[in-house]
């Protein structure tokens, strides 16, 4: 192969992120961002949530939930900017913004979940 493209790797991240986002985000969004705050359903108490969060499996789960969908966004948004706004010539800036943003979010998620007391 004269020049091996790294696109397959980014596509894999995009795909797994897409599956995680499709399977998990709707229920999480509905429960934690709408139903519980608005009182449509009775959510767990503050203590209950905190103990859920502390569980090592929960931390890993939340890390995956927060990290992979960001890479899904990064890849998809990058191509939307290329094609939608026709600014592919700014690709270095776009790639840094998109994948850099995803990496930043991943690092933040890792930090938050690792340092939960």
């Amino acid at each position, binding site marked *: 192969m004269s020049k091996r493209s790294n696109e*397959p790797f980014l*596509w894999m991240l995009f795909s797994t992120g897409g599956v995680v986002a499709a399977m998990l985000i709707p229920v999480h969004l509905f429960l934690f961002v709408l139903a519980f705050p608005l009182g449509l359903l009775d959510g767990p108490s503050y203590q209950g949530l905190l103990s859920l969060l502390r569980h090592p499996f929960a931390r890993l789960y939340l890390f995956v939930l927060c990290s992979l969908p960001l890479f899904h966004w990064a890849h998809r948004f990058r191509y939307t900017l290329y094609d939608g706004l026709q600014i*592919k010539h700014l690709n270095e800036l776009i790639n840094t913004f998109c994948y850099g943003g995803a990496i930043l979010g991943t690092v933040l998620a890792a930090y938050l979940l690792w340092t939960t007391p």
Partner: protein
Amino acid sequence: MTGKITLEVTRYHPERDKEPGLQTYEVPLRKEWVVLDALNYVKDKVDGSLSFRWSCRMGICGSCGMMVNGEPKLTCATFLADYAPGPIRVEPMKNFPILRDLIVEVSDFLVKLGKAKPWLIREEERPLTEGEFLQTPAQLDTFKQFSMCINCLLCYAACPVYGLDPLFSGPAAIALAQRYNADSRDQGAHKRLDILSHSDGIWACTLVGECTEVCPKNVDPAGAIQQYKLTATKEWVKSFLIPWGRK
């Protein structure tokens, strides 16, 4: 069916015109006439200078692709009656440079098709004494759909990425590469991977899916491209796990 229908047809003469414009013609509205019949009527009886490509007039040669009311169509398979009372706008296929009137310059596609190496590639030739290749119906089934492509380029006219990205190989070229990769007689997948896995060869495809929608032969190029992406990704992973095994 009697009556007339109006055609608004793109005219462009490279030596005279700065840019293309529309010219109107009235043609008979016959229930069995297709847009191609109407264009031939214009050329025969009204305006002999109108230029367009066509050949078989039965949907197999792939020559007569044009935009009809903004949609890529084979004009030999598009009935006037379906657009009554009209008018019908007939323009050259989108995303290609216009040579003259309804004729577009397609050499970009031919270059990209060549890069996909759409022929059987063998590592070792079989001697004639071994006889012919044998293929089960199931083996044929893996690529038969993609072999139905007539190179009409409607998929290129429908693909927004091809219009925006000059390096994108395009639906038909990739579908034909996948046709040969999936063929049990072929041993050239790695040769095609070089060209098609290059950053803009296939990865610019964002699965808009319009290529499959407009294809008159049900080739499903979008499906072919997705299969190809999966294959290319598996090859990429393998090349990391077995670096010494790469040909």
